[in-house]
């Protein structure tokens, strides 16, 4: 968590970093305020980043405050860019020729994304990347990653439990930490990142600053914890497949799949073939999710007809199957599924309850 050299500079250097990346002809995508919500979008200027705006994120609740505080994960995750919600895969012409759309892949910098979202990109590298999703690979190739470490996680954050934050350790080009508005600590994570930082007026961080950084991150880590631990979690979940918690949650769950949509790692999709009047047709990939009823519907039957079974599947996939499929948990602890659940269901609470049930059973 604390490896690598740290350099310090003022807030003006953060602005210069933005400018330097711009000057290198990157399109910059980062947090911006839109309709009262911090979103991920294209930034024309550094001033668009809503530093000084904080968010209140609770289960099923999101509001912003202009109070000099800090905002957390934006509504959109990098998935929006790397794995768009709707993507035309190809077109079949009237005479049955397949035409692939030509997408433009610009050099893009993700500026100020959070460590949990960086972790999500790393998961996507294993899922979409290793499985050869071309659109993803081309976007990814052109991506510069500038991560903002979190010193004030929100109420729905649990990156420390998932081991993805509050500070990023590897996989970024540049990480920065706003200790306060006058001291920013910068950390290069790649040759390119070091080269860009070389253009800024930075000093090696003083031992005091390094100490303050460590303390801030440790304090943040204390806050960004769920009520459960990862140790043995997959086994515990598998031991309690018939947990009554799933059925209780299904009473509140709307089955709307908002959690699937906002999850930075959920990758399930549906394929739509849209015929055109000229005899051609388009094949479109759209986001889908395991909470959808039709998702597990197959010719002749249904794998998970009941909502509790669909809810259970989503948890088991993230916390059990994902490890076997891709070698890590599928959850990064960003808390989006908690914030943006219109029913306000708290995933952390659900897992904690299932674990408690097993613990209680073991005590008997």
């Amino acid at each position, binding site marked *: 968590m604390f490896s690598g050299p740290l350099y310090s500079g003022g807030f003006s250097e953060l602005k210069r970093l933005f400018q330097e990346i711009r000057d290198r002809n990157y399109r910059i995508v980062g947090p911006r305020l839109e309709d009262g919500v911090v979103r991920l979008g294209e930034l024309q200027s550094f001033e668009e980043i809503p530093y000084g705006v904080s968010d209140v994120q609770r289960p099923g609740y999101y509001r912003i405050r202009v109070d000099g505080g800090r905002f957390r994960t934006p509504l959109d995750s990098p998935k929006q860019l790397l794995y768009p919600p709707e993507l035309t895969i190809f077109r079949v012409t009237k005479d049955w020729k397949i035409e692939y759309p030509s997408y433009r892949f610009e050099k893009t910098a993700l500026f100020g994304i959070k460590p949990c979202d960086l972790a999500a990109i790393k998961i996507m590298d294993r899922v979409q990347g290793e499985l050869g999703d071309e659109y993803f690979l081309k976007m990814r190739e052109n991506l510069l990653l500038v991560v903002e470490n979190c010193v004030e996680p929100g109420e729905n954050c649990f990156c420390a439990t998932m081991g993805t934050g509050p500070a990023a350790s590897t996989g970024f080009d540049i990480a920065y930490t706003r200790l306060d508005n006058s001291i920013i600590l910068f950390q290069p994570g790649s040759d390119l990142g070091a080269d860009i930082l070389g253009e800024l007026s930075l000093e090696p961080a003083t031992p005091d600053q390094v100490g303050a950084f460590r303390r801030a991150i440790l304090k943040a880590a204390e806050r960004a914890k769920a009520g459960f631990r990862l140790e043995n979690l997959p086994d515990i979940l598998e031991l309690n497949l018939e947990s009554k918690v799933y059925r209780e949650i299904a009473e509140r769950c709307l089955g709307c799949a908002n959690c699937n949509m906002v999850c930075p790692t959920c990758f399930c999709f549906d394929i739509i073939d849209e015929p055109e009047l000229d005899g051609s047709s388009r094949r479109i990939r759209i986001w889908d999710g395991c909470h959808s009823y039709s998702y597990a519907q197959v010719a002749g039957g249904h794998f998970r007809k009941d*909502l509790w079974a669909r809810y259970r599947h989503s948890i088991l996939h993230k916390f059990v199957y994902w490890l076997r499929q891709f070698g890590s948990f599928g959850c990064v602890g960003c808390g989006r599924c908690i914030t943006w659940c219109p029913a306000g269901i708290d995933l952390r609470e659900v897992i904690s309850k299932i674990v408690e049930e097993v613990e209680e059973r073991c005590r008997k």
Partner: protein
Amino acid sequence: MSGINGKIRLAVFKLTSCSGCQQQIIDLGELLLALLDRVEIAYFLEASSDAKPGPYDVALIEGSVSTPHEEKLVKNIRENSKIVVSVGSCATYGGIQALRNWMEFEEVKKTVYEKPEWVEALEKSRPISDFIKVDYAISGCPANKLQLLSTLKQILIGRRAYHREESLCQECKRKGNVCVVVAKGEPCLGPIIKEGCGALCPSYGRGCYGCFGPTIDPKPDALAKRFEDLGLSREEVASRIRNVTSWSEPIRRFLESYER
């Protein structure tokens, strides 16, 4: 196909309704003109008085069945059409006029008409699928013209017309909208209503009022609970969920137990 030059013979009918869905067809504009290369519009009184008799390849029916005459008409349409599509939430669920299904029939007649004895109506406003086999159902108040066009395009290439019937939330998120429930505390029916409208209302910052009708496996009870938490009275909750698709099976079942 049976129309001129191998075109599909299309008929558009109207039962009890406001003509809004038919207007959507006309509102296709240039797309409708493009469609005419493949489709012969044989019967569409809203657009032309040149009405040709059946049989038809495809019949689009707007409106609910609420009179004995309409019951006969709809059966006749079925006999004369290869494919029948119910268009809009009146034809598919019974529509806004199905609100009277929840009231005393004679009372409603008396309240609305000076001479109720002149009115020949069925006791309930019902979806056409209660009377005939419907091949495809499109909902909405009004129906979405692009979904309607997509259905026709799918029929034209001879495949089974398909539309996702998952929550509006999914379409809303794919479109990049901010959730009005979470960010504004506004009641929105999106979680139990099916996609297809392009998430129209939430795109303008207001909650979905449910005109497309319930998803395949909707959870109105859970949503009602959530609305109550947002400060709505039980009466307000029921009235929001009732709306245009009150006579759809899941909403009906919900209302029957919620209002007991």
